[in-house]
């Protein structure tokens, strides 16, 4: 009974998340999809490739999205990972304040934060630059990444680095051989969340990027507003692929590293 509930629960979650993706795909490759038809009446299996060839803005948008997204992932991890380790490892009186600061970008309305940052960034000559956009997006991604990493590291509740060091490992070895493999799931979660949030950003990219970075999310918006659903769906499919390919690659590399540590290097 319990198994049935969990299976149906999983099915429901799958439908909630999978159905929009299926609809987008059907919209992209289907033709003549009108009421009362449940499915499109004709199919154009090459529709996305044709759209790619015809629309000159798609490839630059993919490049802009990927460049900003991966930049944000890099900067976020650079800050979030050591911070998560410190939050788990060290007990400090400032922990409460740090937690509030970390989650502040989620508490303060995004528009207020972006507008005030825009003024500061103009003074710093960061508006309209790649770095400026990445920094702002990082601010919004940090809470998710830190939360995921902290939760993952806290599962173990044990200072494995100390164990490794007692067995003769250097600080670097204990991080590389122990902490990194232990945080594998947290890292995958943090990178996934960061890339999704970063690539979905619309307002911040537009405001701080000063229109210089026309990402997939920015290009998609006028298509939807203008009723060009098929074109928007093609963008949607490309968006999903752009998101899933680097994520899949990252997960594969990290899992391979842990497997190698477990079976080959030792």
């Amino acid at each position, binding site marked *: 009974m319990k198994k049935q509930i969990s299976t149906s629960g999983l099915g429901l979650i799958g439908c909630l998340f999978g159905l929009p993706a299926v609809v987008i795909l059907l919209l992209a490759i289907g033709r003549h999809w009108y009421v009362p038809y449940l499915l499109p009446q004709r199919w154009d299996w090459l529709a996305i490739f044709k759209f790619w060839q015809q629309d000159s803005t798609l490839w630059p948008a993919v490049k802009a999205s990927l460049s900003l997204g991966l930049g944000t992932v890099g900067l976020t991890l650079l800050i979030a990972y050591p911070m998560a380790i410190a939050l788990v490892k060290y007990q400090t009186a400032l922990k409460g304040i740090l937690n509030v600061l970390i989650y502040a970008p989620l508490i303060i309305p995004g528009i207020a934060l972006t507008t005030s940052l825009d003024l500061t960034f103009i003074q710093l000559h960061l508006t309209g630059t790649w770095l400026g956009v990445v920094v702002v997006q990082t601010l919004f991604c940090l809470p998710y990444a830190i939360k995921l990493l902290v939760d993952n590291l806290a599962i*173990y509740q*044990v200072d*494995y680095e*100390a*164990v*490794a*060091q*007692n*067995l*003769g*490992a*250097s600080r670097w*070895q204990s991080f590389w*051989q*122990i902490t990194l*493999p*232990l945080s594998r799931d947290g890292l995958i979660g943090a990178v996934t969340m960061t890339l999704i949030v970063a690539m979905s950003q619309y307002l911040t990219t537009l405001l701080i990027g000063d229109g210089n970075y026309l990402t997939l999310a920015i290009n998609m918006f006028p298509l939807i507003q203008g009723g060009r659903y098929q074109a928007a769906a093609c963008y949607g499919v490309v968006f999903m692929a752009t998101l899933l390919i680097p994520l899949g690659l990252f997960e594969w590399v990290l899992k391979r590293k*842990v497997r190698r*540590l*477990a*079976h080959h*290097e*030792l």
Partner: protein
Amino acid sequence: MSFELQQITQQKQHQQILKQIDLTIPEQQILAILGPSGSGKTTLLRILGGLDQPTGGVFLHRGQPAAPGILVFQDYRLFPFLTVADNVAFGLKMQHVARQERDQRVTTMLAQLNITELAQRYPSEISGGQQQRVALARALVLAPQLLLLDEPFSSLDEALRLEMLQLVQRLQQTLHLTVVFVTHYKTEAYLMAQQVAILIDGQIRQVATPEQLDQTPQNLTVAQFLGHANFITGRWQQQRFHSVLYTGVAQATPMVAENATLYVPYAGLLTVTPTKWCAFTGTVCSCQWNGQTYFYQLQVQSETLWVLLPQKLAPGQTTTFYFEKEPLVY
């Protein structure tokens, strides 16, 4: 030839955890550090394992700064993503031991601890007792000069605990190990170690053999911590102890004052064989079999006392009790 701790102090956030510890760890022996929770045992062990630096003092081996000992943790701390064999090999890998030698040493150690068949399993797939053996193997494979055990058997059941105690003793003898073993279980310390150091409130109060500890605790703090004894308050006058329960000669410890306490271990009283230290007459209130002897609650005038005796007495029976030897007075 031994390991020496000289004037070791440890302070954390204005709290003195270890207070000028002087301790000698004899080589190729087991030394137990026995103390209540929060007495600083683990802190001391972390210093010996090089995980913490003391705020003062030195740790020497044969007059030179000692290399850190290898720790076996209370909760084993096996790396969850490595197999048993890889866990055991970890330290050797960190020491850049060649692959062939590494494999050979790991195989030998797994065989020595009877866990060869677990080599390819992960820690989550083996029992607590097996994890304990793996943790021991992981430390022993490094042939440590000093092996540190941090309450390693506290989460095991009684039978397994005894089995592990015997295993560690056997390994200590065959591998000529120097072992420091931390515990708050008196029985464990007594069964395992040749020497026991009592650590209370960050200070070493006494170092002695288990027998010496029970027979002559150095002071009242040690005696009270070791427990299994009655403490009778009275007065010390003219080389005699005076109380409602017992008035007579007693062996005075150096710190004895006029308001004194008589130390009467549960097992330090006799009924059958009279001695020159006649104690008191008491009535048996209750009797309990503890697996080896009878444990009695006695009523002696207004006082309640606890006694361990090999022979059975019926509740309500009144009998005379003698001290086995001259009692200690603090």
